[in-house]
């Protein structure tokens, strides 16, 4: 394992602790879908994205749109670990007056680039942002996390076809193929078929990776740096609840309680992992 791999894996574990800490402060939340994207967030903020925690609205930065806005706690966890705002603030999740609402809000949270929550809308917003970067002549990129259940929304496909038609090579879609949505397995609720084939048919430069493997994610993201005329799609084969065995093995884990007891056990486990990785 390379040093960088170890660092990214450790960061992913820290993001998981931070997200679970945030959710624990209100007892329960969108735990499964937050955990499934922790590795992607680690690679994005730990390696790929050009950001400055001290200057969250730096115009030249790369931007993230988490269109599955309910995964807010995972993004907040990442931003807190990276120093965009005080770590202790994670404990204010969903409290009255908080800067950390359940769904991402660009007007409230330092480091949140776009408001999301009504599924599908983040895709169009990210397209507009990527188009704007191009028109401004900047080399900034827009990273867009989309849930697999979210792709039930027609707007997602309007946006994807727009991205392709307008040659948004500075847009990178990370599809969180965690195979579960609120009511159960996606193949049972509304089977969307082969995502890789769909993205290719929509004109995306497409790869499929293990979305809980930081090395595969890093390699896939590095490929997207070359830009060009095609938007990029990374179909991330993930486990909903990844990193926490009890959550991952519970079929209906769209929401999952993070009790004080659970948090203590999971945190201890993740901290041991971090200790080993950081030697």
């Amino acid at each position, binding site marked *: 394992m390379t040093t960088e791999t170890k660092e990214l894996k450790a960061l992913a574990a820290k993001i998981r602790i931070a997200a679970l800490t945030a959710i624990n402060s209100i007892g329960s939340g969108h735990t499964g879908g937050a955990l499934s994207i922790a590795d992607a967030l680690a690679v994005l903020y730990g390696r790929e994205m050009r950001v400055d925690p001290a200057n969250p609205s730096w115009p030249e930065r790369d931007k993230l749109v988490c269109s599955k806005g309910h995964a807010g706690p995972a993004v907040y966890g990442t931003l807190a670990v990276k120093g965009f705002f005080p770590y202790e603030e994670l404990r204010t999740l969903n409290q009255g007056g908080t800067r950390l609402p359940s769904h991402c809000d660009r007007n409230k949270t330092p480091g949140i680039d776009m408001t999301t929550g009504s599924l599908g809308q983040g895709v169009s917003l*990210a397209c507009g*942002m990527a188009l704007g970067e191009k028109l401004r002549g900047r080399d900034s990129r827009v990273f867009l996390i989309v849930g697999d259940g979210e792709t039930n929304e027609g707007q997602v496909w309007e946006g994807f*076809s727009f991205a392709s038609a307008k040659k948004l090579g500075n847009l990178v879609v990370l599809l969180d193929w965690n195979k579960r949505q609120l009511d159960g397995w996606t193949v049972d609720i509304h089977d969307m078929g082969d995502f890789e084939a769909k993205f290719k048919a929509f004109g995306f430069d497409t790869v499929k990776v293990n979305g809980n493997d930081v090395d595969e994610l890093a390699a896939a993201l590095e490929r997207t740096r070359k830009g060009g005329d095609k938007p990029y799609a990374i179909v991330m084969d993930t486990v909903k609840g990844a990193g926490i065995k009890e959550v991952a093995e519970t079929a209906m884990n769209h929401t999952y309680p993070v009790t004080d007891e659970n948090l203590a056990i999971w945190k201890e486990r993740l901290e041991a992992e971090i200790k080993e990785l950081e030697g």
Partner: protein
Amino acid sequence: MIKIVYNGELDPRLCKQVLGSTIPALAEADPDVIYLDSDLMNCIGTAKWGAAHPDRAINCGIAEANMIGVACGLASEGFKPIVHSFGCFSSRRCFDQAFLSAGYAKNDITILGTDPGVTATMNGGTHMPFEDMALYRALPGSTVIDITDPTMLESVLHQCVDLPGVKYVRVGRKSYAKVYEEGSETPIGKAITLREGSDAVVFATGIMIHEAMQAAQALEKEGISVAVVDMFTVKPIDVDAVCEWAGKTGAVVTAENHNRYGGLTSAVSEVLGARCPVPIEHVAVEDEFGEVGTQSYLQKRFGLTAEHVAEAVRKVISRK
């Protein structure tokens, strides 16, 4: 400067011509202005300019929800988007996007809805928004405007690009009775008195301005003195103007090419009820869907003529 030149005749300019010249002019004057359409550029005269300026005129295809989102993404990058579709599609078809991606997320955009209400004529009931103002009025911080004539359209568009929030502007593509001299500036949020009167006031918008003026002229011959006020900014409503004229006349009529619920009638009623109660009658669509026909047929069908305004005035005066 506002100069009222109403004499009942049509403005020789079509509003689609004004859109077709004003949108490019705004984009050329300000590099941040960007125009997005959903395959309807040919309907408002922007296609030729758009084809020559693909970086300033983005044709999003027939996908209004996505178009609003793209516009909002551009707004977050500092652009000042002007978005167009027919009023039916630029309101209810993409309302969640306008509400959240624009309003809630504070991405400031101007949304044009052409062919409101009965001006949708031959496109019929599927294309006839009687509810667009109601929807946009319910969006916090929004500005809602029903255009009176081509001169006002030009003035309003110039103001909208730098106004915060979601701006919804409804306008027919064809001609309107000429009310304002070319070059007049009509400040958003300020009602304009078109005609003084003492027995009743008609607050009107859009195509109903002409009907209200015709009604007032006819009623004058009956010895009834009617004021007509252009209430083109339906939100934020000009509270002072509503109360001033309610106080002066003691009888209010609203006239709008829209459902009686949620538009001008509601906005004026809210002010009267809370601040300066007097009797009110309305000339508006009685909670119905649209249908196909000529504009004159549809105005009769839905009760939106000068005769209907005159009748409402007589009725409200009888209730004083």
